[in-house]
């Protein structure tokens, strides 16, 4: 038995153990025991992934009672990389869950489905054929659905969110199934190595491409299949949302990688253009919605759509450039997309865990009612701040490295040796750069809002004022997450080399380590060494900072009343910016896209027209895709549903008559 086989078997055994722990331990100990076993399960995933990434081989064969081939699990290097990412996020989430899970989220169902969810998610990248891939995919989806269902009893809104989630995940499952079926029909088998023999220029391959893009895009929360995200994630507790938004979306990306890297690596150029368009629209739409959202979890959920949009933008650029024979830039774009996926997993899980900590401490997710948490919850604030910097792609975080690499690939991509590679590329690349620039700007604004309004200034509600720091067991994953965000940003060189090894042998990105763990992408002449930069900046800044501190000690600070407070400090929390007012200029600029609805209610004092007693302003931004695309379709379906209800009126006699008529018709047809 090789190390890889032992790792896979270990995950299977730990799943059994986790199920037993969830079912058998009494309520008082359940979260601790189950959470620990789930963390171990996810850690086993990290180890297995690392073995696979470092070149370990081996396979686990699971015989089934179905008339199919046995399921063979054997992750390759790319699968190993994705397995590490999702398992690491899963481990953080489970660890956080030990402390944060209460009442419904500490129930048997919740911990049981958490274990199943983690298991399915970790092993999807190990699948070697379509059947086991889809089976594990469904285990993952069902696990997450049951996990959300555990909260059904406490909140009424969960039910409607779950209906959306189930419908959308089944829709994307259907697309994936149909796409794979198309390819399998063409290849004559369901093994991934067999599917790789399909000619990407046949029309069947193009149909399969469209179906698979929609299916995997739906899992990766891309527009227009993202509608479940802003409904489901706010209903989920912090650690569940972290596992879904930080880890599960990566499975969608993995599916896309499987198609564009493993099976159909040399597709036509229009595939690339289409993926780029889908990614670009998702990125812009996601960040726009995030920037105006005032619920912290909704904001984070839409930000996931944005980041996944950027990942697909990179993937699309890679496909397009490869079709145009600009291989070096194509490889760099692919590495950038994977870097972005990695960094997104790190910062988004930390952000959602931070949101979970805030929800526990203040019991409030509306940014307009938060504030001043920085001094009350310093650990959470620090971790959330570091992750928010990553999400805003500021330097020395992982987000910055990924977006920098993507921009480099796009800028250098449209020309090889000074020659334009193709018209499509020379139009698409500058547009993509513009999209990324706008997205980066809006992301900065969004996360300044998220951090500034929630953690700085004065509390805007009594709940926020009484918030206390979360227990140590919940701080640990937060701190690990924040360290990962910064660490991945400081070590881009080894990371890029690992990714470069994982996407081979079809893709061979020419990336090397330079300086102190810096990255040197030789194909596109781009060098970045953040660690050296930080060390040099530290050396230069140290004397200045010391001088500043010394002089500050000599001159004690004077506290002067604020000039605009009329000589006295009568500042009230209500005088501060709120999330809504901060985003107000943006809402004005993008009024046509966002279409907000405002409700202003003025109560006058007595009969007076000029004296106002109370003004109530409410602004809601609805999802345009939902109201314009899904509502009409749903209304149409509902009309058919009413018709169908007449045929299905619940009478047993009527149902029996249907089968009788069917039987008679069959007999009559036979006798004709």
């Amino acid at each position, binding site marked *: 038995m090789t190390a890889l086989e032992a790792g896979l078997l270990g995950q299977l055994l730990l799943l059994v153990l986790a199920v037993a722990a969830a079912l058998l331990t009494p309520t008082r100990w359940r979260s601790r025991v189950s959470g620990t076993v789930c963390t171990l399960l996810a850690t086993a995933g990290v180890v297995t992934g690392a073995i696979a990434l470092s070149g370990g081989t081996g396979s686990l064969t699971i015989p089934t009672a179905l008339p199919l081939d046995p399921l063979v699990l054997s992750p390759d290097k790319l699968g190993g990389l994705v397995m590490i990412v999702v398992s690491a996020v899963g481990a953080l989430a489970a660890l956080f869950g030990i402390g944060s899970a209460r009442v419904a989220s500490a129930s048997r169902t919740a911990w049981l489905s958490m274990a199943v969810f983690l298991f399915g998610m970790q092993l999807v990248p190990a699948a070697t054929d379509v059947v086991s891939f889809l089976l594990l995919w469904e285990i993952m989806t069902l696990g997450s659905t049951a996990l959300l269902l555990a909260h059904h009893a406490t909140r009424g809104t969960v039910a409607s969110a779950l209906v959306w989630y189930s419908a959308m995940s089944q829709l994307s499952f259907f697309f994936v199934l149909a796409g794979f079926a198309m390819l399998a029909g063409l290849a004559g088998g369901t093994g991934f190595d067999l599917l790789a023999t399909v000619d990407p220029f046949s029309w069947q391959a193009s149909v399969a491409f469209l179906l698979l893009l929609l299916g995997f895009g739906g899992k990766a929360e891309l527009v227009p299949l993202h509608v479940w995200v802003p409904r489901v994630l706010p209903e989920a507790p912090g650690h569940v949302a972290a596992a879904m938004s930080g880890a599960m979306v990566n499975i969608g990306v993995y599916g896309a990688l499987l198609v564009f890297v493993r099976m159909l690596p040399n597709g036509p150029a229009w595939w690339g253009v289409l993926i780029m368009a889908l990614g670009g629209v998702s990125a812009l739409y996601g960040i726009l919605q995030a920037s105006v959202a005032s619920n912290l979890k909704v904001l984070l959920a839409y930000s996931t759509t944005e980041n996944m949009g950027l990942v697909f933008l990179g993937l699309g650029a890679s496909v397009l450039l490869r079709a145009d024979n600009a291989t070096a830039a194509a490889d760099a774009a692919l590495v950038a997309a994977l870097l972005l996926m990695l960094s997104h997993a790190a910062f988004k899980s930390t952000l959602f865990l931070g949101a979970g900590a805030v929800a526990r401490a203040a019991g409030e997710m509306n940014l307009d009612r938060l504030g001043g948490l920085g001094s009350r919850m310093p650990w959470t604030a620090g971790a959330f701040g570091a992750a928010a910097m990553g999400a805003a792609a500021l330097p020395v975080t992982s987000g910055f490295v990924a977006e920098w690499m993507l921009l480099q690939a796009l800028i250098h991509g449209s020309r090889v040796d000074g020659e334009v590679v193709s018209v499509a590329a020379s139009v698409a690349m500058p547009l993509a750069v513009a999209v990324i620039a706008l997205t980066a700007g809006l992301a900065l604004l969004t996360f300044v809002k998220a951090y500034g309004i929630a953690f700085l200034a004065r509390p805007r509600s009594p709940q926020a004022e009484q918030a206390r720091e979360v227990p140590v067991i919940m701080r640990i994953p937060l701190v690990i997450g924040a360290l990962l965000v910064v660490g991945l940003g400081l070590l881009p060189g080894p990371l890029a080399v690992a990714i470069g090894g994982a996407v081979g042998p079809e893709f061979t990105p020419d990336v090397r380590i330079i300086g102190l763990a810096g990255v040197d992408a030789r194909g596109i002449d781009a060098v970045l060494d953040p660690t050296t930069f930080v060390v040099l900046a530290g050396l230069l800044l140290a004397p200045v900072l010391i001088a500043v501190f010394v002089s500050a000690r000599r001159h004690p600070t004077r506290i002067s009343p604020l000039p605009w407070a009329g000589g006295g400090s009568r500042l009230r929390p209500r005088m501060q910016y709120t999330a809504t007012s901060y985003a107000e200029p943006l809402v004005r600029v993008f009024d046509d896209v966002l279409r907000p609805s405002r409700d202003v209610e003025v109560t006058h004092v007595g009969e007076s027209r000029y004296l106002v007693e109370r003004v109530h302003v409410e602004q809601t931004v609805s999802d345009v895709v939902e109201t314009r695309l899904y509502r009409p379709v749903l209304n149409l379906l509902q009309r058919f549903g009413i018709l169908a209800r007449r045929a299905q009126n*619940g009478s047993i006699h009527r149902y029996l008559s249907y089968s009788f008529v069917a039987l008679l018709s069959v007999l009559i047809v036979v006798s004709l």
Partner: protein
Amino acid sequence: MFTTIYPQLIGLCTGALLLTSALMVWRHSLLASIRLLSVQGVALAALVAVIGVEEGEVEVILVSVLVLLVKGVALPWVLARETHATTRTDEAPRLNPTAALLTVALLTILSYVVASRLLAGDTSVSAHAAPIGLAMVLIGFLLLITRRQAGSQLIGFLVLDNGIATVAFLTSGGVPLFLELGISLDVLLVVVILYVFAGRMRTKFGNTEIDQLRKLHD
């Protein structure tokens, strides 16, 4: 000796089966239907026995005893016991007797037409009688969709099951003993469950009209 009267015996048994089925459609009283069902069970057992003697197989004769016990005695007894225990309500079917008998005739014709297509070329005696089994299936179905009471529905279901058994015995010379044992136990179980269910219905609604069952409840 036996070979000469074999076709006539087959004809007699299958004729009894068809006659009892048609009478069940005609009669509305639940008790009368149960008696007819008992007669039908005996006829089916006789049919199986005749086939067994003709083929000289002991196993098939054992099956005929089993059929006699389950379909001729046990099932009617269970049904009658339950019906005696309750106030008797006569059935008010959705189809009047004339129309129902006419439908039975049409269904029988249809099954002969279908069977002539399916079994074309097979000139054996039992193949000639097979359409009766098909007709019984269709008549059982007709009973299912026209009767309102749970008890009558059950009788329709049993006629349907008898029809399937008849087709099986006539076309393939019967099924193995074990299989027959399993099927008989299944049917017995279904009947018991449905009767418990009917009892629950009666305590809940005061009668067993299945039109009441239109909505799902937790």
